[in-house]
């Protein structure tokens, strides 16, 4: 009897009473129902809508940059050919040619940079004025060579920021005659700064410099003739940069770097000359690697110099090579050799060159941001699992906005600088959107894979829950049926015996 009393009758346990048990089972299902949206939310990919149709419309628009030319009436016969030539060479220019007024004044009055063609003794440019001999007939080709040149294919892609890295490399300091220093600040200020300041509206430049004392070449330069001269063949030049052992720039930022290397050959290996294709030493000691940078080889004079410090005059020829290479890498068009430029302030870049570069870069940026925006929306629509978050959305919209403003203002008198600023902004934002780290599509999983992952996880939990729920529902229905049966029987009894009070208390009436 004691043993029996120790265990309570299951029917008396509070949680075994029907409604508590059902409450517990129902709570599981309520929980699942509440958790489902949460689970859906946390596992679904956030894909915010992108302005797809706007992007496609924008991408089809063609940029037309206004170009005002005031032509002196002396040249009125050449206007048609001039307009056609510019149209053909640069379809992105919207040429307006004025004639019949006093052109010597107009170019300074316009907000938008206008150009003037004036009769002159010889062919030269001054500010934005072109003086052209009145008897010459080839105004159109002169103009296209000034304003509608093609972008140099050696130029680096546009970037709002560039890092210029100047390195003085001693091939082998231990061989003697090592250069320990150079007047780099003065050399940069004298040769590089004129370019960087003139192009300051295009790019933001950071400049760094270093001197290294051991920079071995990855190959043996061949010795030719018996005079101890060493030569670099064309093939050698392509592998000249020993990037495994030379550290040419600090990696403190991800801005594109343009490298400038002043290479001082080892004392045992000089003079080191570049060979022209026919095998004779070339008179040039500089070469350029497209989009990468420039290299100048500096052979020290035969009697070893007393000073181991390169002074400004000694750096002059090397740095004029660097400045030429820099202007090539930045895509600065050159003045045709036939045109001389007289500048009062002796800044060697004419506004014609800078303006042309600005137009080319603006056009390039607009085209690139069109491409990037279009690629972004096509990719997002093509790859279903690619997330699009708020930042990407905002960047795409920002890029579109900048482009819209650029196009809206291109008709008005917006300056080239502002146009470039808008295009650069559009480009930066669109590529930021495209390369946003959040835009990584989740890994592709085949359907079988999903079943294989989810089944062991959920089936083991769901089966007992389902079974309990089904059993409980079955029991409940059975109960209800019994209750109804009982009630039917009772009603029958009530009619038989006509006993309302018994039915009200619910006490079963004996049958």
């Amino acid at each position, binding site marked *: 009897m004691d043993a029996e009393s120790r265990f309570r009758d299951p029917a008396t346990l509070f949680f075994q009473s029907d409604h508590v048990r059902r*409450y*517990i089972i129902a*709570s599981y299902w309520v*929980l699942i129902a509440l*958790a489902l949206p*949460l*689970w859906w939310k*946390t596992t679904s990919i956030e894909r915010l809508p992108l302005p797809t149709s706007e992007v496609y419309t924008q991408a089809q628009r063609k940029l037309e940059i206004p170009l005002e030319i005031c032509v002196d009436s002396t040249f009125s016969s050449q206007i048609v050919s001039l307009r056609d030539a510019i149209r053909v060479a640069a379809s992105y220019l919207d040429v307006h040619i004025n004639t019949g007024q006093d052109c010597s004044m107009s170019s300074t009055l316009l907000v938008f940079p206008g150009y003037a063609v004036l009769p002159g003794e010889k062919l030269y440019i001054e500010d934005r004025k072109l003086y052209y001999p009145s008897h010459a007939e*080839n105004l159109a080709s002169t103009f*296209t060579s000034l304003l509608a040149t093609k972008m140099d294919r050696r130029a680096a*892609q546009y970037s709002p920021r560039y890092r210029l890295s100047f390195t003085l490399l001693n091939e082998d300091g231990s061989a003697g005659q090592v250069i320990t220093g150079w007047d780099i600040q*003065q050399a940069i*200020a004298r*040769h590089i700064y*004129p370019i*960087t*300041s003139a*192009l*300051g*509206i295009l790019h933001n*430049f*950071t*400049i760094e410099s270093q001197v290294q004392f051991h920079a071995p070449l990855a190959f043996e330069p061949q010795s030719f003739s018996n005079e101890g001269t060493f030569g670099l063949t*064309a*093939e050698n*030049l392509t*592998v000249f*940069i020993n*990037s*495994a052992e030379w550290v040419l720039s600090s*990696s403190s930022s*991800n801005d594109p770097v343009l490298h400038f290397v002043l290479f001082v050959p080892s004392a045992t290996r000089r003079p080191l000359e570049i060979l022209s294709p026919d095998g004779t030493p070339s008179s*040039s000691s*500089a*070469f*350029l*690697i*497209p989009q990468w940078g420039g290299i100048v080889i500096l052979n020290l004079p035969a009697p070893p110099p007393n000073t181991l410090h390169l002074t400004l005059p000694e750096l002059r020829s090397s740095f004029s*090579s660097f*400045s*030429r290479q820099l*202007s090539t890498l930045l895509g600065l068009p050159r003045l045709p*050799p036939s045109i001389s430029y007289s500048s009062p302030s*002796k800044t*060697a870049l004419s506004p014609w060159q800078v303006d042309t570069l600005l137009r080319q870069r603006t056009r390039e940026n607009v085209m*690139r941001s069109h491409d990037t925006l279009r690629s972004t929306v096509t*990719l997002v629509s*093509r*790859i279903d699992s690619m997330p699009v978050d708020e*930042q990407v959305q905002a960047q795409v919209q920002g890029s579109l906005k900048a482009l819209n403003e650029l196009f809206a203002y291109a008709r008005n008198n917006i300056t080239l600088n502002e146009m*470039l600023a808008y295009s650069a*902004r559009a480009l*930066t934002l669109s590529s930021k959107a495209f*390369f946003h780290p959040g*835009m*990584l*599509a989740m*890994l*592709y*999983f085949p359907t079988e894979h999903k079943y294989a992952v989810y089944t062991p996880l959920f089936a083991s939990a769901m089966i007992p829950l389902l079974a309990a729920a089904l059993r409980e529902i079955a029991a409940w229905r059975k109960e209800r049926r019994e209750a109804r049966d009982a009630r039917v029987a009772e009603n029958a009894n009530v009619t038989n015996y006509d006993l309302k009070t018994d039915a009200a208390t619910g006490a079963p009436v004996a049958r």
Partner: protein
Amino acid sequence: MCLFSFPFSLWFPLFLLFPLTISNASSQHTNNWAVLVCSSRYWFNYRHMANALGMYRTVKRLGIPDSNIILMLADDAACNERNRFAGSVYANPGRHLDLYGENIEVDYRGYEVTVENFLRLLTGRLPPSFPRSKRLLTDSSSNIFIYLTGHGGNEFLKFQDNEEVSAHDIADAFHQMYEGGRYNEIFFMVDTCQANSMYSKFYSPGILATGSSVVGENSYSHENDYDIGVAVIDSYTHYVLEYMEKVNKTSRLTMADLFTSYDVPKIGSHPGVRSDLFERPLGPEHPMNEYGRGRGWTVQGGGEWMGREMETEKRERKLTEALITDFFGGVVEVDMDSDDDLHAFEDLECPASEELTSSPMKASSPVAPLSPPASSSLLDMYPFLRPSLAFILLGALFAFVFSGIFSTRS
């Protein structure tokens, strides 16, 4: 065509500007990149490490600078406790050549070799904190050689016994690269079991692909070294590398020469080629027509080559043939300055030093500085919070429901 519409006088000075241009001229690319991935780890996968390092040595020998090579390597073989030859990785039983010895720059090492990093590397969607050496800084004029090795299966490649990259993922990543203008041409090579399935899902133009074995076929290891105690290299890679030894920087060997060098009885599996997305012909008619036929090739109608039927048409269009050096070369172009240019810049100098006092480096930028992306929420900063938050909420719900039940007892 439009080239001739210009007056000759305009073009003439242009020719003077490029006095010396060394260029392969067969392909529109100006730089070459290589992505070499060994997706295995642990000592018994020594051979995969050796595969990747052998390929690394070859691309470097052919002139791709280290800065343009992204090497993803578990890198646990050279300094493994079980390696009798510490600090060395050999790819042949005689141990003639130490692949690890000299200058090895592993960009993604150990646990950094993940599917996510690989796909981020390709698509360029790396967090801003990643250094240059871990980025594929290519543009639309880059040719990229991508080499994968590891354990794989039908349409997947296993990464470090932990996760898998599927053929769909790589195909999508390549398409994103295409849309983003990140390559000119890709040469994709994969050495794994059922490797040819890895390139079957590609759909972006400009991709040439080759794999070591057809679907349902293993890719085999080549040789054991009994002192090292494991297989030292895979067969397919071994014979590709052996062939590449014939190639030098100025070689004119074509891709067709490489593909027709596949020797099935030696390799032990049937390598495949896919060129239907690639624009240029793989080589002259003679070797390429022989591809997949003859000794050892048991496949009916020749070895697996998607795009075989397009080859004649490509050749008829007189497109330049795909050279091996198009993908394995170094800097492909150098321009030398001509002397007459020099004088134009001689006088490019600031007039006098009084201007120097104004600081020269502050070139103002017209672009309004883009504000850094708005500070992200806590959930974005700590991604693990998301699942744990769900757990906490679930727990709270449980607690709430049960407390309700228990309180009814009293």
